């Protein structure tokens, strides 16, 4: 597979279950090492770099199943990412942490234990942690899954806001309505291969994409 993400781009990544979307995010964020091939970040290879160093470089992500630090408070969760992430100066720590909590709608819950949040709040905390490391590339793994249409609207708006502060964003999603709201550019995966790359509107008309999603289309 060959995939590039350009500065200023928001790329939607769609594909059926098991097509390798999350695996791709795992490989880029460093939780999995690729068996072969190469991974370049602004021109330099990062294939074997540990996840924390990638985080320092500016690669971060959210998880499909959120991974907050359950025993710590929401604020502590964000503070760790602020302290150990990319931010070098610690002078405006409190302000920063306040801003991120506000943006992700967690201000009211800042002193709650992360374990006590509901799923969509945990997803927001995942996003808040990722943002606190000041990423250049943000990988979003199914942020909208399980949200109602109202929440989906809010989260899509949030991502458009987040986009202003990062160089590029890769959004993995099952909910097509959500993708449409976030970006026009999509890549469709099937079994670890890119089968389509282009505008979302064209993707739904593409024969192979339809085949992957709906099964074989009989030629009449």
């Amino acid at each position, binding site marked *: 597979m060959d995939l590039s993400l350009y500065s200023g781009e928001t790329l939607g990544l769609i594909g059926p279950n098991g097509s390798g979307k999350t695996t791709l995010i795992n490989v880029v*964020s*460093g*939780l999995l090492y690729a068996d072969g091939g190469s991974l370049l970040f602004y021109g330099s290879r990062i294939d074997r770099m*540990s*996840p*924390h*160093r990638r*985080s*320092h470089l500016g690669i*971060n*992500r959210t*998880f499909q199943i959120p*991974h*907050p*630090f*359950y*025993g*710590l408070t929401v604020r*502590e*969760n964000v*503070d*760790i*990412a602020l*302290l*150990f*992430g*990319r931010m070098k100066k610690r002078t405006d720590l409190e302000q920063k942490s306040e801003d991120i909590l506000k943006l992700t709608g967690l201000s009211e819950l800042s002193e709650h234990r992360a374990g006590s949040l509901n799923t969509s709040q945990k997803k927001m905390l995942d996003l808040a*942690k*990722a943002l*606190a*490391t000041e990423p250049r590339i943000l990988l979003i793994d199914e942020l909208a899954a399980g949200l109602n249409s109202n929440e989906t609207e809010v989260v899509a708006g949030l991502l458009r806001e987040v986009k202003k502060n990062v160089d590029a964003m890769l959004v993995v999603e099952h909910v097509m309505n959500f993708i449409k709201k976030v970006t026009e550019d999509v890549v469709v995966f099937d079994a670890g291969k890119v089968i389509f790359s282009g505008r979302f509107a064209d993707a739904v008309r593409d024969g192979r994409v339809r085949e992957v999603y709906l099964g074989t289309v009989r030629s009449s």
Partner: protein
Amino acid sequence: MNFRRFFLSNPKKISTDAALLIVPLAALFILGPMVITNQAIFMELAVYIMLADALNIVYGFTGYLPFGFGVFFAVGAYGTAILITHDAWPVGASIIAGACFAALLSLLFTPMLRLSGAYFAISSMAAFEAVYLIFSNTQLTFLTGGPYGITFTQVYNPNLDYMIAAILAAVSALVVLLISKSTFGIALRAIREDRFAVELSGVSSLRYRTYAWLISSFVSGIAGGLYGWYLGFFYPEAVFSLTDFSVLVIIFVLFGGRGTVYGPVIGTVILFLAYQLLSLYSANLLLIIFGVLLVLLVLFIPNGIEPLFRKIVKTIFPPGGSD
């Protein structure tokens, strides 16, 4: 560079906590031997508090349970004894050097930190046995005394040793307090919660676990040196005791509350004194009772009694005012 992250992020309230730790400990170590006129009991108590705090740093904060953690204690004791016997080093320098040996050994064991859960616990036990077999080997009799033990009574000074041990027990509790309030401590707790996700927050899980491991082994080594000095003579089994200096300490920490500041101290004081009392009546039942206690603790109060203690303190001294 990274050491700046050891500094306090929140120095508030630290003096209250420090006082709450030091005052009762000072009272215990000064008044204790007057009530129960057996200094050795309080000497051991001081040593156990240091061990509990050392274990808490690695097990409590990072969630990694080294079952063979007593190896650093034993190496500290041996390092001290060897330097005094063979090189006639002064006691203080010997104890510090012994603790440095323990820390060096822990560095040698750092590859184990790549393991987790039961694998880590078991590999640390294997490491313990390996080091024990080396120190007790007859081939090394010229250095370690082998199975015949090592004597260094020339520097024997139990009163001075007791005083230093009592002070250092309080210091080790303060070290835990400082860690828990530092950004380093928060990073360790995050590692305990999720050692993969913590990497994405920019924390090198392996590096911070190694720091915790080093500090823990150094404190254990100091405890070992002080204990060895108090004995003046010991067989390998006396310091390489998996039950006495690993399992018991784990029970103390679990009982008190792992990952807390007060828990290990409270747990050690209560259970160690209970242990001494029980041993007067039914020495045979001791390990059975403590074994059952360990199972019950893990099943029913995995967070230990520290939360209960906190509630009691809050009831007696309601928040507000000085708190």
